[in-house]
């Protein structure tokens, strides 16, 4: 909790960036609304359980915010600690590596959850998004599971950053590719067969599908939630183990601080 509280305090001190982050997301929502309006009535691909392309893309925007924050955001955070010298001060404190790894995920989870709520509310209030069928329990479960599953990628990225001082950019590109081919902004059915097959295997695919089911159908999200749970149960301990090993390497190589 102390790590999360500290991260929130630091984040709040960057008021301009905080506002900018939020507005970029709002701008995305507006852009996709007008794209949706432009092609309304045109022959469309299978949007799954989303009632319109705007509804489809809105979930893409919202879930991508969570995915990016909890994966790439965590890797970037550890790099920042390394560069500013605070990582070495943290390591001198009596905290476990596991606590540190989990603590790093607190802020991305809190902020991205808030942003998702704002974008969905904006969609409903300003652009007529129908939430009458929403299963709110499913919505919350999916949000928590998406964050948890993606935190595994974030912690693993942090481990790579600790070991080689780089990696967050590559992780960012990988996450972008994952979201793109797993149904963030267009259905996977429009992809070439081989790419669609890969997209269907991505954990992010279950994130998008389950979130859309909870939001627009009020059911059918449970299987996707189970897949994300299975991914989390396997990947999170593995990522924490990697982080622990990377911390040991950084101490051996003298790379906790890099300034």
């Amino acid at each position, binding site marked *: *909790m102390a790590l999360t509280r500290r991260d929130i305090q*630091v984040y709040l*001190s*960057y008021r301009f960036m905080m506002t900018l982050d939020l507005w970029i997301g709002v701008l995305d929502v507006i852009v996709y609304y007008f794209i949706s309006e432009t092609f309304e009535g045109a022959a469309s691909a299978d949007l799954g359980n989303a009632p319109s392309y705007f509804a489809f893309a809105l979930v893409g925007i919202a879930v991508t915010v969570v995915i990016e924050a909890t994966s790439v955001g965590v890797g970037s955070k550890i790099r920042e600690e390394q560069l500013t010298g605070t990582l070495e001060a943290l390591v001198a*404190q*009596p*905290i476990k590596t596991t606590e540190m790894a989990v603590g790093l995920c607190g802020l991305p989870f809190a902020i991205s959850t808030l942003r998702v709520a704002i974008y969905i509310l904006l969609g409903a209030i300003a652009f007529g998004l129908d939430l009458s069928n929403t299963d709110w329990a499913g919505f919350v479960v999916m949000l928590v599971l998406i964050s948890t599953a993606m935190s595994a990628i974030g912690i693993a990225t942090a481990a790579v950053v600790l070991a080689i001082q780089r990696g967050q950019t590559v992780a960012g590109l990988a996450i972008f590719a994952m979201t793109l081919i797993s149904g963030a902004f267009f259905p996977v059915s429009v992809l070439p067969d081989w790419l669609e097959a890969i997209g269907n295997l991505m954990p992010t695919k279950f994130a998008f599908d389950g979130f859309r089911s909870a939001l627009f159908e009020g059911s059918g999200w449970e299987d996707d939630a189970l897949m994300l749970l299975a991914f989390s149960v396997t990947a999170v301990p593995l990522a924490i183990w990697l982080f622990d090993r990377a911390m040991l390497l950084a*101490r051996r190589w003298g790379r906790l601080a890099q300034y």
Partner: protein
Amino acid sequence: MAPAAGDQPILSVRGLTRSFGDQVIVRDLDLQVNAGERVALRGPNGSGKTTILRCITGALIPTAGEVRVGGHEAGSQAASRELGASLSQDRSFYLRLTGHENLLFFAQLRHGSRAGALAQVRALVEELEIEDIVAKRLDSCSTGMLQQVGFARALLGAPHLFVLDEPTRSLDQGAKGRLWAALERRPETAVVIATHLPDDVEHCGRHVDLRS
């Protein structure tokens, strides 16, 4: 807090060697420090003073040899609980937070409860007379002010061993006096400092000379 362990030294360094690549910075160092002892590591720049301190805090793993704090391997959670460190103060804080927010954060990592951490920070701030400093955001503080906050952080959790890197380097006379007075009030706590200042060495009962 109870003493670390019966008669064993609070700090035990045996055969410590630390290299960076081909360069050997510290070679085969032995050092034992008992409760209440003050030891100065003295030597010119590049003689390995800070490297030794970083091995004691666990930020670095020795290339050879071992470092134990209160009987625990340096860098372990138990060893970290035994020591309070102040190294490279100007680069180890969250500069966009106030001194008070920084101290409270680090106190919570040691204390657990926010109320307990808050009480401890208040007491320390009062003892060291740094109320004005901790009220400011640290990116507006001078090196000397940061150094005082760094020293306050080292005192958090009432550790049995202080590890201080050039603790008085940027301090004015008043702040230096408060620092040594705070250490005097903790006679059972061992102190290891890295310094090249004769004044600091005089405050220590023993010194270890290092060569570059």
